[in-house]
């Protein structure tokens, strides 16, 4: 990707984000239910209400509100949450790291286990193991994160209660962290007890988010591997004395990763969207569970901030994946 390519991608991304802003702003102005009505005490006078409306800028026209909002957003000011009475940036900054740790852990789990299943399936071609793997994976492909999360609640909540069912860590664990990235921080500090506690709490949401990713990666990568394995260069490699393992990992895999990578990017954004419901099921204090509360409380500034955070994340992932697959494709880096 050249510099001008990158710039035009960035411009398009900003345009998309602006579109997201317009859509969400317009959508929220038609929400029934007055956010002010939900936050005042019964003893408030009409004058209090008018003052509050003016305070949140709700007394101006929609267009005026939009211009003011976009101007503020451009300066990094996303307003104050109505229900939590704190700056949106602060709230998102607190919750987003928890979600990021969650989704990246799930990404790693999905890529590693999906990759292993694909390689195992390719190595077991023409044995009874292959159709068995395909059958199981075919079933897994139909299970979305919502169903996984609940199945895991049943499995680990009732049948074999080893993992905690809710929260990010045990309340007894010290919350004395310098950064909001608790898992990474405990890893760096080599604080094993805290790290294991956090990992235990993350295990189930990570599985719920990562398993659908794993099965779709397993299928796509295996198809690409099988396609590569019948190419002449694999045949020649076999004649050159390469082991089956080396043929799959050294020869076929490099050619199969490209198509799998762009799919992984798309699925990763779907997975991040899935945090909304999965975090709620496991009461995980991330940005996703905050999002549903924000909607239920009609907390307009917070909803806008969260949606923009998600949108930025999605677009950033797309750009990164594009850049990565460009690098991986020898035809484009050395053309």
């Amino acid at each position: 990707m050249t510099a001008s390519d990158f710039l035009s991608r960035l411009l398009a991304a900003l345009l998309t984000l602006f579109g997201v802003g317009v859509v969400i702003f317009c959508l929220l102005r038609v929400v029934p239910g007055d956010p002010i009505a939900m936050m005042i005490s019964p003893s408030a006078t009409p004058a209090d209400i008018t003052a509050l409306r003016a305070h949140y800028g709700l007394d101006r026209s929609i267009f005026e509100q939009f211009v003011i909002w976009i101007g503020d957003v451009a300066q990094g000011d996303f307003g104050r949450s109505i229900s939590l009475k704190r700056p949106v940036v602060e709230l998102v900054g607190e919750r987003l790291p928890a979600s990021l740790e969650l989704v990246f852990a799930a990404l790693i789990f999905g890529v590693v286990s999906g990759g292993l299943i694909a390689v195992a399936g390719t190595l077991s071609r023409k044995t009874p193991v292959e159709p068995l793997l395909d059958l199981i994976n075919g079933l897994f492909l139909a299970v979305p994160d919502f169903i996984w999360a609940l199945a895991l609640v049943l499995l680990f909540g009732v049948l074999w209660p080893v993992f905690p069912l809710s929260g990010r860590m045990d309340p007894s664990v010290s919350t004395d962290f310098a950064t909001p990235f608790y898992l990474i921080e405990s890893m760096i500090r080599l604080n094993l007890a805290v790290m294991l506690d956090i990992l235990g709490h993350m295990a189930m949401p990570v599985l719920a988010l990562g398993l659908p990713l794993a099965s779709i990666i397993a299928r796509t990568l295996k198809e690409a591997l099988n396609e590569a394995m019948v190419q002449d260069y694999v045949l020649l490699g076999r004649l050159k004395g390469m082991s089956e393992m080396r043929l799959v990992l050294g020869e076929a895999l490099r050619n199969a990763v490209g198509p799998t990578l762009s799919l992984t990017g798309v699925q990763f954004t779907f997975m991040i969207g899935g945090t909304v419901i999965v975090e709620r099921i496991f009461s995980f204090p991330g940005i996703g569970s905050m999002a549903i509360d924000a909607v239920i409380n009609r907390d307009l500034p917070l909803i806008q901030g969260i949606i923009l955070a998600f949108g930025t994340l999605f677009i950033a992932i797309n750009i990164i994946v594009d850049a990565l697959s460009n690098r991986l494709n020898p035809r484009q880096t050395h053309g």
Partner: protein
Amino acid sequence: MTKPVLSVEALSALSARNGTYVLSDVSLTLQPGEVRGLVGESGAGKSTIAKAVLGILPSTIRIAGGWIRFEGDDLLTARPSVLRNLLGRDITLIPQDPQTALNPARRIGAQLTDGLRLKLGMNAASARARAFQLMDEVQIRDPARVFDSFPHQLSGGMRQRILIAQAFAPNPKLVIADEPTTALDVTVQKEILRLVRRMQEAHGTAVIFVTHDLGVVAKICDSVTLLYSGHVIEQGATADLIERPRHAYTRALIAAGPRYDRPGQGLQPVPERVFADLRKEIGQRETADV
């Protein structure tokens, strides 16, 4: 007479799908340093013979009988460890399509040295030196650039040269060339044919040259085996077969090819009557077998 490099004896193979013979009672012998053309239309069984020698028959084809002896030892019954030592070292392959025969994701140098390191146990430095020597032999002018290139950066002819270098790298006794020029431009074809012949002479290697083109055979092969529908129709020294064809099918094929030496002749389609006779003859042979 010297000991033959390869002798295929009464080889028969069945299609697992419908039980018909794809090879029946094929025999041929190859002396050291001999270039043998394996000629026939598609489905005649020429590629099946090549694949059977290399031990890479698809699962849809099953050997029904016969032997493939390499320097006297039967490959069909050889232990896997013996085969692993032979294939890729004493017997190598020049594949048909240079597009798919080089891994698009790996540099030429790495692919060229793989076999030297794995099969001959060379270290990185000597494999690299040998690779440059080989590239020189196949007349690649800027070996340093090619060595560090990816396949898509080279022309089809260049890629085929690399594959030829790869095939001759371990000084094999037998090279199987599976229609190595069909995927190339006509202009490049001739160069590649000459290159195969020169490499073969320099290394004293026997070559099985699979092709559907009698013209190619006339240019580079010492001897010819002509196949139709899995049967050997006629075989012998190239000059004999072309000058004094004994079989009507051979005559018809020669007439069907373009004759650069005698313009105005050639390009006669093979008459339907010849095919009818062929099928009848093959039918008789198969009933005689039973």
